[in-house]
């Protein structure tokens, strides 16, 4: 069976204005969300203490809050985590008020109030570690973007590399925008997911670019927009199916992976979704705008004798 038996090339480039507008709007929306709401940075980056505890009965959040206040811990966020029995306690990092001993104080207080409580997880991150993780995260993002840019520039041509990286940075900004808009917690694992998706969605651009390069040699009479249209149309089936498969895996993670993987899977889901769209409908119009020409690929071979008129060397 086949989903995509397309007789004629879809004139994607003619819709260039519409797709670019849509991208621009989502992009601006994401920027607005980031600027206005900001990322809800997790304890990995801000420093502080997160404690996950479990009760056998549904927990009384107010009681827990009171108990902690009595133990001298203010500015505590207490919320359920996944189920009503699981409680997440967050203590922000304020000068001197939170340290490695805080979790012990919290557990002692909770145990005194209700011995039924059991500790599931503690994350304590000191201020300098949080800053380092933040810096390293930003550096990793730059390294990945730079590495991909360099690789594509070597493998194809700088115009391809630039359009692909812009398309994918656009994805990353949209993922970040979603996290900011919905105030989902942004942790180290989410960042890892974003970087993986950055590497992954570039695949899509690579596949389309491969076709464009092939078409530049084969379709001598066609204009650049037609060549791009043909490349997108012929790779469309593959694009949708592979992304669909990866998305299936990621959705399975979202549904079965539990709370710990939830935001990670969420970042991947959004990333893959926008990855299909951007690498096809953002990268290719950009390529056109940057003025890709046939000569960029075949200038060395064309004038020489022994090459057929259409430039192909079959």
């Amino acid at each position, binding site marked *: 069976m086949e989903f995509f038996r397309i007789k004629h090339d879809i004139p994607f480039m003619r819709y260039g204005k519409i797709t670019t507008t849509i991208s621009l709007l989502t992009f601006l929306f994401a920027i607005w969300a980031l600027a206005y709401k900001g990322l809800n940075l997790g304890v990995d980056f801000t420093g502080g203490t997160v404690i996950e505890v479990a009760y056998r009965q549904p927990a009384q959040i107010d009681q827990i809050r009171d108990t902690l206040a009595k133990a001298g811990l203010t500015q505590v966020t207490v919320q359920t985590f996944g189920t009503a029995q699981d409680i997440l306690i967050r203590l922000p990092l304020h000068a001197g008020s939170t340290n490695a001993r805080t*979790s012990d104080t919290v*557990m002692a207080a909770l145990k005194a109030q209700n011995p039924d409580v059991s500790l599931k997880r503690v994350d304590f991150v000191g201020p300098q570690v949080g800053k380092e993780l933040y810096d390293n995260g930003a550096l990793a993002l730059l390294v990945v973007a730079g590495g991909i840019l360099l690789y594509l520039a070597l493998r194809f041509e700088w115009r391809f590399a630039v359009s692909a990286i812009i398309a994918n940075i656009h994805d990353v900004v949209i993922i970040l925008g979603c996290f900011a808009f919905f105030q989902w917690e942004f942790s180290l694992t989410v960042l*890892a997911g974003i*970087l993986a998706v950055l590497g992954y969605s570039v695949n899509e651009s690579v596949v389309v670019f491969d076709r464009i390069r092939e078409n530049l040699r084969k379709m001598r009479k066609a204009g650049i927009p037609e060549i791009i249209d043909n490349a997108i149309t012929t790779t469309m089936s593959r694009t949708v199916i592979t992304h669909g498969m990866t998305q299936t895996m990621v959705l399975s993670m979202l549904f079965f992976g539990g709370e710990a993987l939830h935001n990670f899977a969420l970042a991947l889901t959004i990333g893959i979704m926008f990855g299909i769209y951007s690498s096809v409908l953002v990268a290719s119009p950009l390529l056109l705008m940057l003025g890709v020409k046939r000569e960029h690929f075949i200038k060395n071979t064309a004038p020489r004798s022994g090459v057929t008129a259409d430039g192909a060397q079959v």
Partner: protein
Amino acid sequence: MNRFPLWKYLLIAIVLLVSIIYTLPNFYGEVPAVQISPTRAAYKADNLLLKEVEDELNAAHITYSSAALTGDSIKVRFADTDLQLKAESVLQTRFRDGYSVALNLLSASPAWLTAIGAKPMYLGLDLRGGVHFLLQVDMQAALDKAVERNTGDLRSQLREQNLHYSGINRDHQTITIHFSDPATRAQASQYMSKNFSDLLLSEQDAPGDYILQANLKLATQKHLEESAIQQNITTLRNRVNELGVAEPIIQQQGPDRVVVELPGVQDTAKAKEILGRTATLEVRLVDENHDIAAALQGQVPYDDELYTERNGRPLLVKKSVALTGDYITDASPGFDQQTGQAAVHINLDARGARIFSDVTRDNVGKRMAILLIEKGKGEVITAPVIREEIDGGRVQITGMESAQEASDVALLLRAGALAAPMDIIEERTVGPSLGVDNIEKGFHSNLWGFVAVAVFMIFYYRVFGIFSTVALSVNGLFLVALLSMMQATLTLPGLAGIALTLGMAIDANVLINERIREELRNGNSPQAAIHAGYDRAWGTILDSNITTFIAGIALFWLGSGPVRGFAVVLCLGILTSMFSSVTVSRALVNLTYGRRVRLAHVSI
């Protein structure tokens, strides 16, 4: 056209076989065990110890399934956790001194698998439960301490040399000495550059006040910092042994940090307390005037305390402390130059040296005891006889049975206390229930994702879909085998990484299958289409994987802990998928279709 030479099939078969063997241990699960490992170099894990352990368990009527000597510890396996806990308490009582007795979980895989080094995947703390600490060594405090010691030495030695100063003080790591005339300062400066070679001197003048400033040389600072962190690591290791943790990890990270990972530890409050503990060393005189037999019956003299030497002999030690470990600058194992006996060389600072020389001069022929004090509880490390007055701050302790023991005592002397205070700057604790929960959830996301992908692929590409699915499962097998072989740490993000790489690996097969369909549409014969499909897709597969690989490498480089586990899986998954989705699926295609000369139709 679509035939593989025999060696390629053989290669695939061998790789598959090896992968299956190395994946096997993951299916056997784990059995409760107790692990006994010596914590002092003088004690060995050998067949003698094994026999003792077995006898002890038999005497207590605790049945064990096996007891074996592996590496530097004895591991005893039990049928259930009840027996394990019972055995632990019995062995704990018997091997309290010099051994660490810890609960452990050991792979239940058969002996032949263990013999060829096939182990289950190494689970990270987020999957097996435990504590991860990142400790920061306060280097400023270590340097301050060193400068303070130098200040004290200068104070006494300048006085001894009759170099009169009007004031000496320390501000952080700068020693400032005031002189009333430049001549004395010049003499002092000369004396110091000869005898205090660790200090960098500079002069400053004010009316009537001639100042000499001393700072630690950069090389000395570096040396001090290195030895401080080394000493702290040694100390931590000794302390963790006390905690009874089966497979602790203690390693340096960067110039001034230490990572401590304690799998299975639940009582984090206790762990924190023990890691942060400060132990001290004391030198006291042995009381040989009173009757030891009476003391053993409870009549300990008022000024004395009763201790047991390491060889089991009781000892009466005076309560008054002659010297504390604060004066020790270094301790190293060596040999006595005359007798060739094993010895420990201790260096004391100036004040310590003077105290020690006074004490030894007044007590020649008597014994002194060297004690390690922790939380008010002391242990006699050694109690030698004082042969003569010892001055100069260089002390040699003999009486050790072997060079091993000498190095052990030296280590204890050095490792008794932390060289510099440490702060916990990061803690990650995962409870055992959450760990098990994480494994289960990670496994389920993989399973259901895989099932969904397999169903779709077979439905959409038919026979080629089956090939792709088989290739995908082989990819999963390779990945698990590689992770098991390399003993790379598998974390929860790592488990997610397996799902993600499987999802991405199918990309290669989709790419190939689509190409074949396209070639068929263009009117190529099935054999030619298959050939061209695999051939042309390869370049694209390579390209698309390299970019993800770049991301994986960056994550491995800059990530930490669980994220690093994800990066490892991502990179390995890309490598295995390139092999399985291209070579393995091709082999299946070739086996099925390759030999048919007149192939009219392929199921795709």
